[in-house]
């Protein structure tokens, strides 16, 4: 078996015993060690591969909360406000106003005049919050159905032909998710999955909006390479038999570049069936496709005012959000999962949802302790110090939605929770000080898959308008880099296999053009590509 030795400009190992090295030795997809040339020469005659001689290596980055859907969305037209790179490395410029959106869509329609035309990433918040209407989209086409998903994933805009196809262009509609214009007809904005999904099928969005097909999975793999990611998650999957077989097949392809950890969401099955299915999936996992984990969705989103928040509630007076699970079912699922050592991640946005989770865990773990259950509280955006202290004692991990500071931080300050709570959102400093393991995430496709950006967001807490929001919750560069490697690995219970560059772990590396420990700005660091299980993936050669 060949020993390959990679000399590098610098290797950041995340191994506290040996934080930096110049060389890493790899055999059969496994790291033999990181150290000096001399130290590693004992492994036998190596092949020296010096392609990384001027690169900086980090452990392969781990995105602890994203969705494979990010890959599938790129078959649709990107209309977001921010520049974004597609799986082929093409950067799509942000659409800075509605005219830019219309021009982008018109160009897409020219390529596929038959339609229907679907787009994504729209964020009118940045257009001075003017609402986009069907009249706007009718300027792209008044005959081909068009539908555009907003960046939040909670709203879609349609043109007149699409509304007609969905049978919604009629007066007398009375639905909270369908705003009406002065003419009594829908404006073209549809809010919430209940109304978006049935209309979305007429513009090329699938019924299972979170699902990805095989092509989307492959595209997602490319995005991982471009972001330096070697392990990612599909954090809310239905995982029906068809999807499972597709995932096992695609991720088993010899050149699939990322390990995918998937979580079965709790919707649509009884708690008992959920547990049984996930136990079965655990047994069918492979190195590249890790199943057998549960995602419980407790509440909605803060910017959609559907998260469950404690008093004093939403800053703009909106009524409290929605529960997506009963406390009884939450308790049943956690109890059964803990008893079977099945890991649970919870979508827990608002602080009332966090509180219910804390109390439910306290009840269960008082009855029957569960060694190292490592329940991971995803988003956990509004948790305060007292809640984080209790989560720490309960053995939970947290994975914060750090990108929110940048993308919606100003909205949280101005509208959703107000200045005081906006400044404590995603309290990474507090959590680390309490001894919690912290992950940081993008929730791609909600925000782009790019852990170095996400680390920057937690380090600086800078909003889109340039304010630092809650400086007391900033974490250090080193802590942020730890969070997107070892921290995320720990939340997924794979920290003994990946997350650091040290003997015995998988040869998963992020290959960087610059040094993330000393760079002025983490966002500026170029990603050359990755090494995953010893296989080399150069972004420019994808």
């Amino acid at each position, binding site marked *: 078996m060949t020993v390959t030795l990679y000399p590098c400009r610098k290797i950041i190992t995340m191994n506290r015993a040996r934080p930096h090295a110049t060389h890493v030795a790899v055999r059969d997809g496994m790291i033999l060690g990181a150290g000096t040339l001399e130290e590693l020469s004992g492994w036998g005659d190596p092949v020296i591969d010096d392609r990384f001689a001027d690169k900086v290596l980090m452990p392969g980055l781990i995105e602890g909360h994203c969705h494979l859907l990010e890959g599938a969305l790129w078959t649709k037209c990107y209309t977001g406000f921010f520049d974004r790179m597609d799986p082929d490395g093409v950067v799509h410029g942000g659409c800075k106003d509605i005219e830019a959106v219309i021009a982008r869509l018109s160009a897409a329609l020219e390529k596929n005049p038959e339609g229907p035309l679907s787009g994504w990433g729209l964020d009118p918040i940045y257009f001075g919050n003017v609402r986009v209407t069907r009249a706007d989209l009718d300027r792209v086409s008044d005959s081909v159905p068009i539908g555009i998903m907003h960046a939040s994933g909670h709203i879609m805009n349609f043109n007149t032909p699409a509304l007609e196809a969905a049978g919604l262009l009629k007066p007398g509609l009375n639905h*909270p998710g369908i705003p009406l214009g002065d003419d009594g007809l829908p404006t073209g904005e549809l809010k*919430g999955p209940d109304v978006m999904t049935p209309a979305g099928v007429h513009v090329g969005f699938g*019924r299972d909006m979170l699902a990805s097909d095989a092509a989307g999975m492959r595209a997602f793999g490319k995005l991982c390479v471009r972001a330096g990611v070697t392990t990612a998650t599909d954090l809310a999957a239905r995982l029906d038999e068809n999807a499972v077989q597709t995932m096992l097949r695609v991720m088993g392809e010899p050149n699939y570049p990322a390990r995918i950890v998937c979580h079965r969401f709790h919707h*649509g099955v009884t708690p008992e069936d959920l547990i049984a299915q996930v136990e079965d999936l655990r047994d069918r996992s492979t190195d590249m496709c890790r199943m057998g984990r549960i995602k419980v969705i407790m509440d909605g989103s803060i910017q959609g005012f559907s998260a469950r928040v404690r008093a004093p509630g939403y800053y703009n007076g909106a009524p409290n959000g*929605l529960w997506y*699970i009963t406390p*009884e*079912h939450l308790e049943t699922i956690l109890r059964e999962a803990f008893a079977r050592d099945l890991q649970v991640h919870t979508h827990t946005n608002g602080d009332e949802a966090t509180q219910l989770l804390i109390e439910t865990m306290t009840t269960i773990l008082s009855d029957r302790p569960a060694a190292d259950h490592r329940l991971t509280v995803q988003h956990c955006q509004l948790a305060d110090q007292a809640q984080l202290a209790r989560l720490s004692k309960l053995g939970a991990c947290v994975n914060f939605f750090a990108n929110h500071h940048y993308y919606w931080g100003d909205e949280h300050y101005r509208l959703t929770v107000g200045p005081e709570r906006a400044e404590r959102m995603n309290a990474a400093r507090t959590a680390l000080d309490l001894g919690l393991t912290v992950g940081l995430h993008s929730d791609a496709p909600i925000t782009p898959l790019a852990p170095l950006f996400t680390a920057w967001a937690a380090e600086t807490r800078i909003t889109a308008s340039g304010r630092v929001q809650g400086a007391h919750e900033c974490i250090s560069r080193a802590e942020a880099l730890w969070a997107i490697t070892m921290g995320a690995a720990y939340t997924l219970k794979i920290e003994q296999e990946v997350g650091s560059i040290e003997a015995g772990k998988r040869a998963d590396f992020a290959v960087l053009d610059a040094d993330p420990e000393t760079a002025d700005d983490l966002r500026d660091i170029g990603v050359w590509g990755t090494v995953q299980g010893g296989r080399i993936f150069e972004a420019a050669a994808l």
Partner: protein
Amino acid sequence: MTLPLTVLGGYLGSGKTTLVNRLLRAADGERIAVLVNDFGELAVDADLIEAEDGDIISLAGGCVCCSYGDDLMTALLQIRDMDPAPDKIVLEASGIAMPGAIGASVGLVPGIALSSIVVLADAVNLPKLLANSYLTDTIERQLAAADLIVITKGDLASADVARDLIARAAQGRPVVDGAEASNNLILAQRSARPMPEPHGAFHHTKLLSCEEPVDIEEIAKGLAGDPTVVRAKGCVLSRTGERTLLQLSGDNWTLSPAPSEAALGVVVIAVPDAS
């Protein structure tokens, strides 16, 4: 032709599944399609089952059950397009769902029209649920969306306590006891139901189900003589078979011919019984 759909809402354990079973058993030739979140506890008598095909169970007499899991809309379209079409659809909402939101959404599906929203409240658990701060507003929102509230398990706990709580959480919504929840009553059109009558004093709003011909004068006198009854209004069938509108306020009552589409039943607004 549009298919009428009744939403059955109510928190976990409120008796929705029991009611669904009862509706199916009493279908009496009417082809009811029931959509349930999952087959979980839906114990359909084995001898009723004619065929099972994945998410659909066909029952004797033309009724079907369909589990919708996490994709209600697909299941709904499947039911709508069945041949032969069902006469009515009953949609059992999940225990945490907002029946009002579901009702608004299903009404958008071409070929389906919301018939009404019926929410179940379980007399045993309602006080506990409303006192649970995590759930108070959820339960209140569920109840307030109802065209008709059915109190279940009234034999196991005081239905009057539940009536008091409902009078506060969902003012003026007509309430009926589970024992009276016939197919006709549950599956009636909301347009044929009495409108909710808001009132300031947390009065009880009962629905007297009157499916059989009655002596109207006797009923009216009974209500007028009941010191707790404030107002009453509704449609009853006279001994001679005429649909008659009864309107009562305090001791005064009038009778007049009722519109033909009016559902049978009288809404009675009463002060809570001091005893």
